[in-house]
């Protein structure tokens, strides 16, 4: 936790990054209005959990009065979100994200909370629309969707040629959960706020929550040498994936807090580009686990099936025209390609059927 007093805070909070964040939120909420007609009372169990988490928020603010004002704002905002959206379920960690937005888009003056270029209702709108677009998958009755997200991390790691992929193969990357579902807002301090602001802005620009998965994996790839040195080649860590994942997560979280902002910008940009590259897109495209989730990218499933069926058909025609000699490198390569495409198609159909 930071020991820096918020005298520095005001400067940090009025940076271009905050303005950029707010501009992106403005774009996101364009033409959207809050529908209050389904408002209902929030269940007491949710209110109790919110209270517990709010009490443990804003630890980076030292001024007790300011901290108390922010906590009150957070509690009221969270309660309001769940009154307006009664079908959403609160999860621990959501409060970290909301606290982040509140802290960035408000300030304290004369003992009251002031809003930056917005008012309380607009701030609420930012949060609700942001949640709808990026966090809705976690607001369900259980966190099974989060497990689906964590399952994608080893798959993306494989695309980054991380040789330790085998350790995590077919296992959700549980160790990443805190950073993924809080969008890196769980361990905020006065020092790392500029870093978290940049991450949040890039996420908003990316328009897809999968950005966080790609960025998380990019961090693992970026700190690969340190991970090898301190975790993977350290006999004390053993080979328990859960231990390794936790240690890797701790390492990248610590390193992220120390990262140079230019280096961070570069990593974020690379993650943004990677997210839109075919190599990463194919992971999400050819999975049925993410069907109906925000990481689905609005793929036209039928179009993918049609495209792959055609691909297999073309493969088969080409194979027929080739010499029926498997020792020929062309025939061999063609056969492998065809089998691979058929396999992919069968898997795709099977997953759809099972779903």
């Amino acid at each position, binding site marked *: *936790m930071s020991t820096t007093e918020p005298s520095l805070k005001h400067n940090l909070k009025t940076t271009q990054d905050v303005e950029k964040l707010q501009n992106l939120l403005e774009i996101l909420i364009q033409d959207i209005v809050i529908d209050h007609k389904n408002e209902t009372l929030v269940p007491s169990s949710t209110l109790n*959990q919110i209270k*517990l*988490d709010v009490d*443990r*928020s804003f*630890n980076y603010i030292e001024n007790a009065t300011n901290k108390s004002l922010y906590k009150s704002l957070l509690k009221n905002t969270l309660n309001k979100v769940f009154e307006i959206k009664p079908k959403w*379920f609160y*999860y*621990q*960690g959501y*409060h*970290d994200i909301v606290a982040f937005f509140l802290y960035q888009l408000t300030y304290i003056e004369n003992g009251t909370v002031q809003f930056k270029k917005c008012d309380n209702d607009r701030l609420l709108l930012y949060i609700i629309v942001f949640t709808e677009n990026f966090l809705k998958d976690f607001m369900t*009755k*259980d*966190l*099974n969707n*989060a*497990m689906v997200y964590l399952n994608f991390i080893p798959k993306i790691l494989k695309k980054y040629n991380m040789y330790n992929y085998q350790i995590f193969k077919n296992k*959700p990357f*549980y*160790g990443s*959960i*805190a950073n993924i*579902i*809080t969008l890196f807002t*769980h*361990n905020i301090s006065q020092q790392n706020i500029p870093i978290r602001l940049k991450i949040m802005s890039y996420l908003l620009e990316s328009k897809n929550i999968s950005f966080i998965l790609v960025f998380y994996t990019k961090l693992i790839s970026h700190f690969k040498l340190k991970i090898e040195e*301190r*975790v993977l080649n*350290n*006999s*004390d*860590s*053993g*080979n*328990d994936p*859960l*231990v390794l994942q*936790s*240690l890797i*997560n*701790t390492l990248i979280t610590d390193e992220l807090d120390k990262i140079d902002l230019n280096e961070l910008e570069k990593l974020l940009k690379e993650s943004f580009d990677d997210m839109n590259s075919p190599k990463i897109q194919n992971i999400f495209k050819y999975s049925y686990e993410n069907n109906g989730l925000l990481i689905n990218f609005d793929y036209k499933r039928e179009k993918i099936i049609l495209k792959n069926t055609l691909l297999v058909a073309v493969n088969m025609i080409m194979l027929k025209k080739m010499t029926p000699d498997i020792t020929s490198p062309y025939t061999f390569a063609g056969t492998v390609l065809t089998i691979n495409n058929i396999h992919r198609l069968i898997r795709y159909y099977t997953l759809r059927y099972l779903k």
Partner: protein
Amino acid sequence: MSDADDNQYNYDYDLLYKLVLIGDSGVGKSNLLSRYSNNDFQINSKSTIGVEFATKAVKVDGKIIKAQIWDTAGQERYRAITKAYYRGAVGALIVYDITNTKTYENCSDWLNILSTNLENNDIVIGLIGNKKDLQHQRSVPIEEAQEFARNNQLLFTETSALSNENVEKAFTQLITTIYENSKHQTGIETLTKNNNGSIDAGNTVSLTKNNKEKKSSSSGECC
């Protein structure tokens, strides 16, 4: 049994015990762990999201036991994730808040969750009534909790992570009981370190590491 409050044993150990801390949100699990592993208490603690872990080594019967302690999120919705961490656990502490009856009542549920998610029935379980320093707000009578523990064959301690009362005792009691059980019952699942430094599940086997494997720097400590 001698307590080891220094961390020198973390680099070299004979046995590895995986322990889990479970219980409702806000009962003080994270502070119990930080008090035990680092003698630290955070007034401004934050919610645990998912799972965190810390290690501490203790000496029992001349053997160095490394306790790998997993601190889990208390909110019910995290159970799908936290239960993945129960696998291989040889000990568990179910924590409640002595000032909050609901957290005590939910201990039966936690016990059921443990029993349905564990492969190892020989697990040693302790019931911990935390926040003992708040006597004036007590709502769970100690006798009732003791009775519950007796009926369910649980160890029982009331602790205060804030005042550091009985914290060491609670963990030590758990670890010693696991050790004693493993001495008398062959087959209890503990984790031992093999010669390659990797961790395997298996029977309790004493191991003496080669000098070259000894570490000069710390790793695997609190996340």
